[in-house]
């Protein structure tokens, strides 16, 4: 077999529009790759087993938990993090709405909340408040600031679904 199991591999992917190439241990998850290897510490690690959503990033445009994906599985993929989406302005409306409503309290869950909310609002599809709550329910906030967060997401969704 040409392909033998290895403990260390090369990963080559696009992170926030930039090509990166690193040698990584097979066991390293994507969140640690972003934080430790690329020093993109905006992606936070809460539970580190897929429950809290703090580590959410976009992989090929879809929101995923970066603690439940190996760094080597990012090979050939397009990764976007809170840093890239903030710099590009893609999250501007959501970030403004979060600030206006004090929806970021301690800020630990905020990056993950914004990325999930980004996917929710991207389609511009109208949703009821209970539907928004359900959509966002995979992201936990230990400050329990949920009402303000849902308010912010709802406001952005409303403004988007009004714009043709």
């Amino acid at each position, binding site marked *: 077999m040409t392909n033998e199991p290895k403990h260390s591999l090369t990963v080559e992917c696009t992170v926030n529009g930039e090509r990166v190439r690193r040698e990584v241990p097979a066991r390293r998850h994507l969140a640690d790759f972003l934080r430790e290897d690329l020093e993109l510490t905006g992606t936070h690690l809460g539970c580190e087993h897929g429950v809290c959503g703090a580590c959410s990033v976009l992989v090929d445009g879809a929101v995923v938990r970066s603690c439940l994906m190996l760094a*080597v599985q990012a090979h050939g993929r397009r990764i976007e993090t809170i840093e890239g989406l903030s710099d590009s302005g893609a999250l501007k409306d959501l970030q403004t709405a979060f600030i206006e409503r004090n929806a970021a309290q301690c800020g630990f869950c905020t990056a993950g909340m914004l990325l999930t909310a980004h996917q929710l609002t991207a389609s511009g599809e109208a949703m009821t408040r209970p539907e928004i709550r359900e959509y966002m329910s995979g992201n936990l906030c230990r400050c329990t600031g949920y009402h303000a967060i849902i308010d912010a997401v709802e406001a952005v969704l409303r403004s988007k679904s009004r714009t043709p």
Partner: protein
Amino acid sequence: MKYPDFAYVRPASLGEALDCLQKYGDSAIPLAGGQSLLATLAMRLSSPEILVDITGLTELSEIAREGDTIRIGALVKHVQLLQSPIVRGATPLFTAALPHVAHVAIRNRGTFGGSLAFADPAAELPACLVALGGTLVLGSSAGRREIGAEDFFTGLLETDLRPGELILEARVPAQAPGSRWNFSELSRRHGDFPLAGLAAVMSPMSEARLVYLGCADRPKLATATAGMLRGASYPLKDVPGLAAALAEDLDPADTPGCSAETRLQLAGTLTYRVLNDLQEIPAR
């Protein structure tokens, strides 16, 4: 926690993947979406020596209709299943159950085959597959075999998969014209594995296939309950003997936070709710 150490290999073809699983046997585990497997690694509940990443095998990522059979590849993601017009048209029970599967970020990566292989008795997709009378196609370097979903799930997180075997796809008969279906579950938080759930399909002749999740060590086809409800008039209300039939079919365990007695009670509540609501859903 960080994952324990393991070696990783990404086979380039299905043949290579099956050879690899054959060669390493018990020490290798196929890695698909990883939404359960990697979580068990993070909690140090499993420690495979080798992960065989099969996510590049695009031939396992398709949903197709062949006559009255729907073929769902093992690597079809939950989001793909949820949005599939083929699935919505032919096996809408899946479409009804999928919003209950975890959360959007998990559905973006988690796979159909992964959910079947993990075999959590409270998982939605295994229960739906049993309710629809589906069949799994398993592959190994020695060849292929088929097994009915009901026989595939053998116990708590246990299946009939043998070392070296990989789930390739499921073949699901399209729901009969005139059939009705419904899915519901009771969980403490949306997206959690439920305390109890029910996937139900009712044929035009009112023969019900009722599969309860979270109420036994596997998705459980409740034959005594279905038999007792044959010819019942709707809406169901205070059916004598329902609790006894459920107790005969199901064998819930006492778990921290939910006794077996509570689960049986919840199974009864779901039976009324799911079957009564089912009458209101237009037939296929």
